[in-house]
């Protein structure tokens, strides 16, 4: 294994990139992406400027839920390669200063997992209590059904055991029983196995559901937090404190907040409610949804960080919106019923925004500058499209479009052998949208993404700074300050499709000449009076506000430099 030392809180400055192994690059020509292929494409990711790769489940699995149904925590799915391939990939990533985290499903396993096979068939087996069994399906009645389109109950009858087993997701994904201490010990051993290989952390799937208690929603229970704190303590103790845990807890911010604990539970958690509100603000052309959700976002411990995203491998979830907001979102972004799934919209970023480059860039601007670490879903950096007719969430999991070559340069396999067909429609098809073409165009989305990511690196304020929203009279203008130490960055964004003026109260910065970060242009000095800027349709500015005396602060080497 090879790991580079670095800051323990590296994730606070990092830009993450979410990858489906099967979708990124096929290295052996069998039509399915693999670790060999991903390793070949690492330099692309370095050029893009991302810092950490988040690998979706790559474990042995029947793939009935795209790998979130793990049948062997200790093995790589054969279609994706071998453990040795994974190790080579990990070492190659580290050699490029890229970190890697992988998904880890801690809540449940596949029903094909040997633990469940033993548990379902033999009540005397050592694994008998690894899952939640019941003689009745009426326990935990207050727990909601999450996959409402596919499941009617959280209980499924198992004839072999003559009992019901508990599952918060699909019925082929039985929940593990964390009231059995052997289960948490077994899960820690799984974590050690991968961390020993040098992995930089885990994105922990479905963490609110680990423990069940009667009379509760069976979500976010104190027992679940205690268990997660135990995981964290062991990992910190055994791995030096720079391995990262990212929580998937699709909850309101105040319910997610406990997952940070006192800085002793998760390092990061997704900010789920922000994402739909970004789209809502864009469609309404007003800042209120974004500012409101931050008003309701509690502070988190200093070492913790929100994970921000525009899109991911799942549907654009609308669980964290009101019914009215959900109706609006369906109206605005999913007029075709095929686009709806569960309580969400199964579309990629570019199609959601009608392939409007300015709106795509604007949302990415917000992704990269709002408080948190941005997570880019593979292909969204080139504006890949989707195929809602592929079923479930497969429409947003199609092969990466590398070039206009056969199979989008993703695979040399026969077209019919691909795990999913490449996108071929005239607007988003691989011949129109691909990495090779955009790499040659200075104004392409890919080039813009590289510039934005590089610009984000110029100030730690983007990853670490406190946020303060300005309140210009024009509601179509979203403006906020990010302050970190001596650095202050001002972001001004026009949510409207028409040019807009903005008057910003920047009196506290009077005398400063704002420097526009992306172009390096020095703007007129700020006065006590409101600062006036005008923005084009969906335009945005990133300003650095640097006080004249800032450069006079000591470095600590002056007095003895010669």
């Amino acid at each position, binding site marked *: 294994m090879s790991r580079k030392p670095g*800051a323990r809180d*590296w994730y606070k400055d990092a830009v993450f990139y979410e990858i489906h192994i099967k979708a990124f690059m096929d290295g052996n020509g069998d039509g399915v992406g693999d670790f060999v292929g991903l390793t070949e494409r690492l330099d692309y990711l370095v050029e893009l400027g991302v810092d950490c790769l988040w690998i979706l489940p790559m474990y042995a699995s029947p793939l009935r839920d795209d790998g979130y149904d793990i049948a062997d925590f200790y093995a790589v799915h054969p279609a994706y390669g071998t453990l040795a391939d994974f190790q080579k990939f990990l070492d190659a990533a580290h050699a490029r*200063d890229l970190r890697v985290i992988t998904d880890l499903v801690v809540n449940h396993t596949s029903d094909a997992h040997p633990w469940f096979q033993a548990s379902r068939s033999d009540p005397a087996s050592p694994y008998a209590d690894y899952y939640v069994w019941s003689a009745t399906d009426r326990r935990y009645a207050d727990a909601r059904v999450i996959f409402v389109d596919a499941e009617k109950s959280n209980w499924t009858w198992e004839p072999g055991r003559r009992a019901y087993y508990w599952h918060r997701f699909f019925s082929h994904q039985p929940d593990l029983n964390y009231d059995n201490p052997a289960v948490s010990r077994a899960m820690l051993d799984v974590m050690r196995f991968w961390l020993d290989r040098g992995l930089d952390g885990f994105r922990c799937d479905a963490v609110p559901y680990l423990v069940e208690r009667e009379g509760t929603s069976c979500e976010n229970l104190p027992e679940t937090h205690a268990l997660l704190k135990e995981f964290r303590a062991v990992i910190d103790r055994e791995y030096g404190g720079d391995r990262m845990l990212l929580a998937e807890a699709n909850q309101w911010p105040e319910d997610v907040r406990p997952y940070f604990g006192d800085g002793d539970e998760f390092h990061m958690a997704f900010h789920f409610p922000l994402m739909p509100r970004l789209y809502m603000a864009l469609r309404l052309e007003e800042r209120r949804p974004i500012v409101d959700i931050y008003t309701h976002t509690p502070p988190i411990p200093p070492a913790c960080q929100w994970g921000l995203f525009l899109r991911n491998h799942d549907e654009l979830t609308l669980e964290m919106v009101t019914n009215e907001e959900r109706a609006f979102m369906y109206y605005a972004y999913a007029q075709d019923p095929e686009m709806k799934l569960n309580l969400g919209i199964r579309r990629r970023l570019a199609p959601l925004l009608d392939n409007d480059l300015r709106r795509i860039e604007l949302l990415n601007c917000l992704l990269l500058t709002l408080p948190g670490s941005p997570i880019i879903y593979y292909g969204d950096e080139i504006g890949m499209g989707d195929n809602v007719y592929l079923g479930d969430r497969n429409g947003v999991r199609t092969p990466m479009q590398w070039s206009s070559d056969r199979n989008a340069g993703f695979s040399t396999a026969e077209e019919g052998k691909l795990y999913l067909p490449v996108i071929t429609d005239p607007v988003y098809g691989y011949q129109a949208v691909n990495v090779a073409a955009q790499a040659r165009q200075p104004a392409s989305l890919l080039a813009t993404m590289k510039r934005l990511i590089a610009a984000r690196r110029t100030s730690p304020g983007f990853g670490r700074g406190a946020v303060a929203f300005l309140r210009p009279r024009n509601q179509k203008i979203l403006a906020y300050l990010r302050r970190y130490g001596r650095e202050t960055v001002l972001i001004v964004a026009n949510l409207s499709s028409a040019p807009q003026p903005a008057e910003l109260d920047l009196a506290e910065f009077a005398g400063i000449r704002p420097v526009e970060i992306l172009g390096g242009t020095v703007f007129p000095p700020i006065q006590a009076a409101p600062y006036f800027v005008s923005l084009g349709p969906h335009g945005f500015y990133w300003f650095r506000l640097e006080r004249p005396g800032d450069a006079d602060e*000591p470095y600590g*080497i002056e007095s003895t430099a*010669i």
Partner: protein
Amino acid sequence: MTDGTQDLALPPDVERELDGVAPCEIAVGVLTYNNATTVSAVAAVVRAGLERHFASASTVLINADAGSGDGTPDLLVAAGLPLVRVRHATPFAQRLAVPFHGVPGRGAALRLTFAVARRLGARGLVLLEADVTSAADEWLERLLRPVLEQKADLVVPVYARHRYDGTITNLVLAPLVRALFGRRLHQPLAGAGAFSARLLDRLLADPGWPASGHHQTDLWIEGTASADAFAVWEAWLGPRRAESRTRTSDLPTMVAQAVGGLFGVMSRYDDLWLEVRGSEPVPVAGVPVTPSGEPAALDVDRMVGGFRRGLRDLSALWEHILAPETLGDVLSLDTASPARFGFPDELWARVVYDFALGHHYNVVYRDHLLRSFVPLYLGRTAAFVVATRDRDVGAVESHLDAVGAAFELHKGYLVERWR
């Protein structure tokens, strides 16, 4: 040149000072400028050092003053040593912003001091700094003994320092001097030193003595001594603490003066270094002292921030100075995480060489060029701290040796482009 005394024309006021002063074996030079608070202690160290280590030798104290207004020369009189006081030209600009070595017109002061020493027939001259409060009597012995007894011609001090003191010296001057002159000096601008009569004669006879007002004299002396195969030594002294109200501590000014001084020497005296290949350590007096590893209040984030600001504000200027490949590599340095910031030695050598070339060919106004070097220096310093702060002192030494080796290895890059 005569048998021990140099027939040098000296200013009339100096001639008057020399009236009645007997020849001496040892000359002690002290260059001053408003050092009233510290110079008496220096005089006391001189007296003690001479009494303890060179009691039988005749000695004269030479004070070259840059126009002190605080009575500094009078305090030296009170020290009770045979004294020659001389006054030298002090460029107005240097009096407004006193250079890092604390003495305006240091080149002229050195020349005058050297000339007086040789007029008095001194076999050796030891030079001390007037604002250094940590001097000890054994410093005289360690500096001078190699000259008087072991045929050393130039003895350069090495002070016991913190591992992160002297970053301009450690990361720019020392590696460049090593590559240029082929001598591995730890602290080429140490301020103090000792000189043999032979070397003083050689220097005084040189028509190319750097003009007054430049910061090049010390480096030119080291280059000349190395090129002409004089015996260059180092003497390990104790810690150096200076107490001065006049020295500049403005980082860009220090970088411009120190690095600009060396670039100036490179341009004006390229015969001293163009043909030199390889390098060698120099003989040592005293026992090498391990750099201190005490915790230091260094702001790496701010240094990397300074580098970032350079990337942001100075790229357009750097396009004129750095070779395209060098600029590309600099722009590619990853500044996202200061705690992981790195700056490869080979790239650093190319950066410094490109700046030397830019200075030589005057591609942009030289003051702008030198000041635009500061963010790069901050970046390289940050990388040095990042790479070594969790490691032992041996690793620090190894790191700095690797920097020097990189400069040496890539000297061809400089030479090819110089001609």
